[in-house]
């Protein structure tokens, strides 16, 4: 009996669990404002009264990474600040997303110098880029709306979409044959036979 055959009363909605979780997550994105420079001012303006970010669910700008799920990197990041940025990113709980706001965070902007990192996406996984110097609040709001669409499209309740290593196709030549870790296992003839057989089958296939 398919779901569409059910006679449901009007106050019942049927959905997928992923879609429900995505809807909850996208509508309550709490930003971690990593504002280093001028884009931080525009970030503050976006959170202020005229272009209110709270109406999109970003109710509070928590300055603790443990309580946020969206990191907005606003402003240029110098090489002295980059380890701090990475530490804050690692301290955030999953599911987490990152918006790179402004030209300096996306590519280094006008500052192609010895001290400025040319784009934080070299060192942090970034989901959304907002161009501008600084971007207008409406642009940042558009980026958050686009991020909400992305979460709704691609999110899962278990966070499977963040497990990127599992989805990468394994190259045959790079498959490592698990070596026995202990010396006892190295002297185990059964294990040796199995490993040899597996090695031969792989080399035979390629």
């Amino acid at each position, binding site marked *: 009996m398919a779901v569409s055959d059910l006679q449901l009363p009007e106050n019942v909605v049927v959905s997928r669990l992923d879609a429900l979780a995505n809807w909850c997550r996208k509508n309550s994105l709490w930003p971690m404002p990593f504002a280093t420079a001028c884009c931080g001012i525009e970030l503050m303006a976006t959170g202020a009264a005229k272009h209110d970010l709270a109406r999109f669910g970003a109710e509070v700008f928590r300055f603790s990474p443990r309580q946020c799920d969206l990191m907005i990197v606003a402003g240029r990041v110098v090489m002295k600040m980059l380890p701090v940025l990475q530490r804050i*990113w690692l301290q955030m709980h999953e599911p987490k997303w990152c918006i790179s706001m402004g030209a300096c965070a996306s590519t280094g902007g006008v500052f192609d*110098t010895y*001290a400025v*990192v040319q784009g934080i996406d070299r*060192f*942090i*996984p970034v989901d959304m880029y907002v161009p501008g110097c600084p971007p207008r609040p409406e642009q940042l709001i558009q980026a958050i709306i686009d991020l909400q669409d992305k979460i709704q499209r691609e999110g899962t309740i278990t966070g499977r979409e963040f497990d990127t290593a599992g989805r990468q196709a394994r190259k045959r030549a790079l498959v490592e044959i698990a070596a026995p870790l202990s010396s006892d296992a190295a002297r185990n003839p059964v294990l040796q036979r199995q490993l040899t057989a597996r090695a031969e089958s792989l080399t035979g296939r390629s």
Partner: protein
Amino acid sequence: MPFTPPSVDDVIAAVADRFGPLETSVFRGQTRLVVPVEQSFELLEFLKARGFDLLVDVSCVDYLEYRDAPMQMPACAGRRYGLVYLLASTTTNQRLTARVFVDDPEPTVPSVVSLWEGANWLEREVWDLFGIRFAGHPDLRRLVMPEEFTAHPLRKDYPLQGRGERHNFPVITRHES
């Protein structure tokens, strides 16, 4: 300039009495006094006693590929780094610039932290960006660049984009974070 500081001729005369005639030049109302590095601490001490109680800035110019003589003064030519001490008197409103020229290798200048406490960070910045050692500085380490940085970025032979230090960091992928 809307505000013209009073003339420093009396100070230059007093300096000449004490140290012998030193090279000076005037440019747009600002007087620059060139002092050899051996006498630099004594001269700055003398100027402080004379009323220049504010050290505005300590900076440096790298004349590595400079075509003419620095400040069009032939006496200054030949040495690579020209230290700049900007002095001001809060009582008489006078302003004076003292220039000290030092050269590679091992450019060293006596520190003026004992005269002006504010020179602590100013000299740390010059050490960080130019590599000029300040003898007698209590805590000479990098100020604006990270501590593990090895080069001195504002020298003329250091490229603007750096030598790869800005991207020498571990990459965090989505899977690892």
